[in-house]
């Protein structure tokens, strides 16, 4: 049955390659994308969550001459599978209207599905790596479609670095264990294992955009097509964390790490890097004017939280990390799609050039608003539960450095959230002639918002989904009911919040309903008694360089960050490369001398 899903996907891949019509391709890929989703929903049986029952088998072995690829489902893979594959259909629905012709988006989305499925199901490192690189390739081709040089160069360099490091790590593990099967690899607390794990984690961290390995993200996110970026940011970036979790917790051999993790500097380092990522990326996002780059930095920041959770390593932290991953998948995909809708109608990306879009695109705005609430972890979305678990975990472990950093990054999220809300959607109505986004796009966005609402009311269901992973990783499960989460430090009761909110809303609602109000024109605004309509153009949109006072204070400290380190490194490499090039000076006499010198040297060396 697993073979069937793969086969369907691959056939669809080849088929959609030759379809030019966007709508047909969209529908085909939409239908096809339901297969893996159905498979994963079905596999929920294994982990005590009966959603649908079809009876997919859950193991598969492929024999290729001399090499066997092993596939089977694990609780962690199941969680990520549900997350990623429920993300895809809405995105494909959105693309139904977004693109005008099929020029390679759909086939490579399907290819990415294949690779994700392969990564999640693989139970040995060879197949994991094969599909990992297939994913990297798929992403690269997607980036190629828009052909931005910076994005392509950065992505490919990072991706290859990540691939080679992972490959080296795998090779080292193989060398020590003599096997590639997850089930048989034993991790020990010796130096070589640490080297292997470090290499693997750095490789994974590149995909997960942890600082300082994040510099490929902003150019890539800001130049590719939005539906793809939604999937890249929402879905594929989590695969890096899947790798880390697999390595540190899910592999049976990783149990040996437990004792190690409790006192480990290494994982504490991961948590610190995660929190600093969240912190600095938040600041970078605050000052960014390009909407897509802002969202890119925001992605980096939000992904940093997951690293904190993994680095902290307690069961609360793990639950928080997974919850955060899930939330981030959906709200960031929604935000990218909303940004795409806005650009679809206005053609603008700069926040300072946008404004007042919400009045004409209320549905897009509502989806984006809800996603932003989730992003800012306002307790009326599921975004809060995840962050709350992470904060609890940090306090539980007494991570006095990480907890405040995370909290401040959370506050910083308000700053850039408001920048999106005000700069793009509110304020001066600059685009009075646009229409609401097409229906499939709106439907796609609202479908993506749904899980955020469901898990707002029932965060316990989310914890149910992780329970089998937590217990398989040897961590305690968190005591919870569908709507209450208990930790050793405190409780979070969503029903109390919701009911309390309903009661609290009564007076506000009464005031709102009982007193009449009338709508006034946008221009009817008090600006020192001045009358905007008397002038030809008077900009009332204060979105340009919005946080200037803060920027003046903070920016001097943010300069000289990762990008400048890399650019100086790049310059050094360039210089060396120029030196290497100068060896080939084009003078044939020199070349002849090289030959003779070589002869002399090796002859001398051999004789000596």
């Amino acid at each position, binding site marked *: 049955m697993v073979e069937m899903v793969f086969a369907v996907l691959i056939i669809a891949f080849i088929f959609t390659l030759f379809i030019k019509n966007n709508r047909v391709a969209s529908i085909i890929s939409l239908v096809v994308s339901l297969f893996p989703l159905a498979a994963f929903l079905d596999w929920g049986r294994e982990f005590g969550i009966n959603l649908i029952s079809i009876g997919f088998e859950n193991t598969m072995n492929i024999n290729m001459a001399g090499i066997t690829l092993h596939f089977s489902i694990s609780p962690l893979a199941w969680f990520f599978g549900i997350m990623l594959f429920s993300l895809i259909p809405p995105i494909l629905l959105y693309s139904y209207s977004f693109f005008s012709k099929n020029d390679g988006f759909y086939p490579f989305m399907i290819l990415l599905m294949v690779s994700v499925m392969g990564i999640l199901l693989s139970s040995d490192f060879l197949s994991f790596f094969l599909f990992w690189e297939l994913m990297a390739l798929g992403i690269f081709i997607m980036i190629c479609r828009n052909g931005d040089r910076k994005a392509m160069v950065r992505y490919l360099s990072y991706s290859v670095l990540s691939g080679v490091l992972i490959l080296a790590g795998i090779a080292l593990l193989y060398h020590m264990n003599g096997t590639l099967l997850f089930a048989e690899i034993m991790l020990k607390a010796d130096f070589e294992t640490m080297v292997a794990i470090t290499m693997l984690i750095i490789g994974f961290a590149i995909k997960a955009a942890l600082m300082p390995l994040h510099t490929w993200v902003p150019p890539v996110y800001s130049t590719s097509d939005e539906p793809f970026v939604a999937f890249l940011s929402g879905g594929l970036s989590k695969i890096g964390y899947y790798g880390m979790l697999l390595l540190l917790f899910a592999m049976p051999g990783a149990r040996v790490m437990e004792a190690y993790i409790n006192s480990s500097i290494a994982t504490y380092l991961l948590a610190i890097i995660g929190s600093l990522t969240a912190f600095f990326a938040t600041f970078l996002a605050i000052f960014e004017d390009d909407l897509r780059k802002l969202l890119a930095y925001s992605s980096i920041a939000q992904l940093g939280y997951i690293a904190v959770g993994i680095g902290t390593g307690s069961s609360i932290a793990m639950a928080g990390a997974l919850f955060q991953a899930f939330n981030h998948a959906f709200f960031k995909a929604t935000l990218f799609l909303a940004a795409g809708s806005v650009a679809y109608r206005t053609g603008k990306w700069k926040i300072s050039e946008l404004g007042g879009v919400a009045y004409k695109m209320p549905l897009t705005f509502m989806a984006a608003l809800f996603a932003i609430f989730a992003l800012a972890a306002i307790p009326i979305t599921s975004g809060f539960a995840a962050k709350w678990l992470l904060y609890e975990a940090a306090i539980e472990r007494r991570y006095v450095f990480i907890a405040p950093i995370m909290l401040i990054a959370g506050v910083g999220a308000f700053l850039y959230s408001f920048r999106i809300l005000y700069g793009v959607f509110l304020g001066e109505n600059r685009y009075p002639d646009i229409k609401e986004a097409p229906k499939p796009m709106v439907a796609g966005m609202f479908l993506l918002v749904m899980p955020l609402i469901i898990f707002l009311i029932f965060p316990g269901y989310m914890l149910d989904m992780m329970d089998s992973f937590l217990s398989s990783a040897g961590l305690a499960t968190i005591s919870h009911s569908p709507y209450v989460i208990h930790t050793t430090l405190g409780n979070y009761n969503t029903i109390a919040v919701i009911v309390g909110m309903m009661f609290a809303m009564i007076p506000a609602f009464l005031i709102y309903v009982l007193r009449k109000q009338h709508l006034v024109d946008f221009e009817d605004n008090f600006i020192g008694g001045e009358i905007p309509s008397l002038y030809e153009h008077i900009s009332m949109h204060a979105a340009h360089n919005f946080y200037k006072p803060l920027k003046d204070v903070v920016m001097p400290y943010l300069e000289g960050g990762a990008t400048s380190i890399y650019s100086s490194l790049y310059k050094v490499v360039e210089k060396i490369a120029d030196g290497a090039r100068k060896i080939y000076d084009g003078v044939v006499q020199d070349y002849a001398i*090289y030959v003779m010198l070589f002869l002399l040297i090796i002859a001398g060396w051999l004789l000596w």
Partner: protein
Amino acid sequence: MVIHPVLLIAIPLLFAFLMPLLKRAKAVTIIILLFNTLLAILMFHNVYNNGPLYEIIAFSPPIGIYLYVDNIAALLAVMINLLAFINFLSVEKVEIKFAMLYLLAVASSTGIVITGDIFNMFVFFEIAAVSSYALVAWKRDKEALEGAIKYMVLGSIASVLMLVGIAFLYSEFRSLNIYDIMNRMDEGSVLILLSFAFLLTGIGVEAEIFPLNGWVPDAYQGAAGSIASLLSFGPSKAGIYAIARLLMIFSWQQSYDLALSVGIMTLLIGELAAFRQENVKRMLAYSSIGQMGLILISLSMLDSTDYAIIAFFFLLVSHAASKGALFLLSERKGFGSNASKYAGIVSVMSLIGMPPMAGFWGKWYIIMGAMQMEAWWIIAAIVFSSVVEAAYFARYLSTTMQEEEHASIIAAYPPAIMATLTLLLGILPFIYKIATIGGVING
């Protein structure tokens, strides 16, 4: 069915010299190359099932011409002929002289691979080199002539050195049969050491190893796309295979160390030189140098790990096919059609070492091998060079993907076929099996 490996060399040679008498040069050449390819495949099938093939012409060894075909040689013969055939399809206007030179180059490259006699190898090298000089100069513009002259100067030096090396060897062993010499090889006198040095230098020029590869950028830059492609999968691959045999003959730890250090230098300098290069063909040439370094590294591990041989094959074959495709594509500014885009991306990915392309397996096994040897510097060099490679290839793709210049079928499909070969080799890694059975490179 008895297959005569000598036909692989004899037929193209014969027709090459008959070419002036024939009218339809293109058709004839295509038929010959196709025939040769089929023959090579049959031969490979035969060798694969029945074991290595010997053929002795005129006299018995150690005096006569001696051909020896094992799995690996047969496979290389298939590779060279097949790629030559596909490559030839992309040539639009074929003149008689061109066809003649082309056939000579192919025949001699095949000869280098399947010969079992070191002097024959020298002869084939000479033929390959001479025909290559002419082919490089084919465009007859300034660049082409410059490249050809540089190639010729270095090639002449190389052939002299090679001859001297062979003379030393002959004076020591009184034999030119590689197999024979290999069996009798021991610690080695001064003469043998010197002969190794001379042979390595001589063959190294053809095999593009540092620092003997001064001709490479200029020759590749000057040559037309199909010629550059031929150079990259023909003579140079034959050359590196000859070095493999050389290492088999002189299988001392010293020579492996030498190969390793030269290989790492070739890798790093080639990739770094490509990093800043703006001219596409020159960049690809430097990249070839880097890949040669990688192949040399895999050769240097032959003695220590079983993975080396597999890595060697994957690297050799994938590099031949993908670099061939890229050189063909380099004729035009941009890709221009979907087939070309496909060819370009697949080839680049194979060179960078991404699955499911064939190049990936090369990198996988070379790293596996290096891990087994616990040779960290090899891994460090590979990591660094991969990233550099990725950077300049991404740059390459970003410019070529955007240019919209329509590609004719004849220009678009041959590289796409080569790319498909790379892809298929990666998806169906049967070479793995072949290589593990073939085991060792024999004399």
